């Protein structure tokens, strides 16, 4: 049965090499689709991309998968394709954007207790990155904190958790990073809309 939606969410996982994104985007556009969202990263030599694409003609997801896999060697790529569901995608959290940082000596069982802590409080993780320097690790998370949470109490509890993991922690509103990094007026950041 043909899919009703002509927009798909596509993710690809593959060992990194030059030309992967070219292969993917060529295959997608070759099917007459417009790529309208994309995020790509490389972690420890593995390439991953997530994109959304709108197809001019109604195409079944299996046909798209077959077509795209032709660009790769046999079993080179792992691929997931699901129809885009606007109702699910719109369930974004009403909150403010904060940045979490955790630094210290790397060890096992850091992410599990941290992400459990966040999930238990309804905090959504928008982005997470890890940086290594020798044996030291730095986690940087961009999160959405529900407006009803007391940020001071959250910081106290989070630092307590980080202490137990021998890590130094911070939770700071994203505007401090935007103010310092962006070449743009400050004023819009502090208006009610900017918050």
């Amino acid at each position, binding site marked *: 049965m043909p899919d009703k939606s002509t927009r798909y969410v596509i993710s690809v996982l593959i060992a990194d090499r030059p030309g992967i994104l070219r292969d993917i985007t060529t295959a997608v556009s070759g099917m007459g689709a417009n790529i309208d969202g994309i995020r790509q990263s490389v972690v420890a030599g593995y390439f991953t991309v997530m994109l959304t694409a709108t197809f001019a003609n109604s195409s079944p997801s299996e046909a798209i998968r077959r077509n795209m896999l032709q660009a790769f060697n046999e079993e080179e790529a792992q691929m997931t394709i699901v129809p885009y569901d606007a109702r699910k995608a719109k369930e974004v959290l009403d909150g403010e954007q904060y940045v979490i940082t955790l630094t210290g000596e790397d060890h096992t069982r850091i992410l599990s207790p941290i992400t459990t802590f966040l999930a238990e409080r309804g905090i959504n993780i928008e982005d997470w990155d890890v940086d290594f320097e020798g044996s030291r690790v730095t986690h940087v998370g*961009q999160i959405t904190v529900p407006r009803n949470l007391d940020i001071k109490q959250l910081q106290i509890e989070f630092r307590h958790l980080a202490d137990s993991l021998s890590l130094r922690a911070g939770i700071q509103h994203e505007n401090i990073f935007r103010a310092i990094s962006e070449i743009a007026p400050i004023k819009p950041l*502090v208006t009610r809309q900017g918050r």
Partner: protein
Amino acid sequence: MIRTKEILSTVRMLQEENLDVRTVTMGINIIDCAGPDMDAVCEAVYAKICRKAANLVRVCDEMTTRYGIPVVNKRLAISPASQLLGGHDANDALALAMALDRAAADVKVDLLGGFTALVHKGMTPAERTMIEALPIVLRDTKRVCASINIGTTKAGMNVDAILLVGKTILQIAHATADTQGFGAAKLVVFANIPEDNPFMAGAYLGAGEPETVINVGVSGPGVVKRAVDRLLEVNPGATLDEIAEEVKHTAFRVTRTGELIGREVAERLSVPFGVVDLSLAPTPRVGDSIGEIYQSMGIRNLGAPGTTAAVALLNDAVKKGGAFASSAVGGLSGAFIPVMEDHALAYAVEHGTLTLEKLEAMTAVCSVGLDMILLPGDTPAATICGMIMDEAAIGITNRKTTAVRLIPVPGKKLGDRVDFGGLFGSGTITQVTCPLGGADFVNRGGHVPAPIHSLTN
């Protein structure tokens, strides 16, 4: 999404390099509290300050929580207190100062500036009353800070006022002899006083300012030093223009921090935002020193030839970075060189590489002047007046702010150590060469006319 590298760079500035918002200063105009009955004046001033600044500290603390950046000091700057002293005497001046001190304590700010007289062209009886009351005011209050403007580029220099001020500084020091003359550390004598300076002890609310306003002072000498150090680690042969460029970019980032905090505090308090003043203001802590920046740049011994050029380079780069960062840059915005508050400068003075005369040369190219200078307790008034005049001459001629904060320490002599503790730091008594050689000139009094380039209209 914000890039991880940028996030980590900001976190490093906050956690490792002592970046902070040195002060959020609320300006409050109190001229509407004037009247013939000093009890009523004091009541009105107290009530107005408590009403306007009731939430200042709470909101600043919210900023510290929200952004993870310390707002170290919360302060007040009032319109000149001397304007409330017409028809009043020194006892009234003290009553007013006590009311201000009480209000500052009750709204939990650490300092209140604006016990100020603007006498650059002439002196009213009210201003004379205020100046003559300073010894008891600065003795009997804890939070009140005073300033006197004795010259401007437009008006020239009021030497008669300076003669009164020089004598008064000695009286203040002796009135506060039990704290090693600390009262004098709460008085700044300016030329071209800025109307929106948020830093103490010289903050006041100028005549052209709003009824209430938020001005912010950001610091961060540690951030600038580490930026220079990192540049030199990567590129040990970096040229001075490359160092200037690095300082400029760092100043941009620091200034943006200040504007963000200032604007949000102002918005939450529903008062206008005024200026962000990026002044590299040191504290006695290691890693929070202006002198260390010059050392990183290659001035091994502060005061050596090249030091004044290093100050000029730093001051200019800070201003350029700040100007690009914000259209609301004001106050002093540059590099401070308060000797006692900077361990590297204090060390250089103690070991004789940095003399008063060299410091004076440096003030021609930095943002303030001879700041926190310890003098022997028996320093003559004429010497103090001469030092004020020299600094004022630099400011007036160069169309910039200069100031002096001189502390003649009772009972102390050249080379003695003095420790005020906390942010005020410690230092060694120094003195000028030939202290009375200019006394005849100074004591002529009168007025030094405005320089020719003041005639711009």
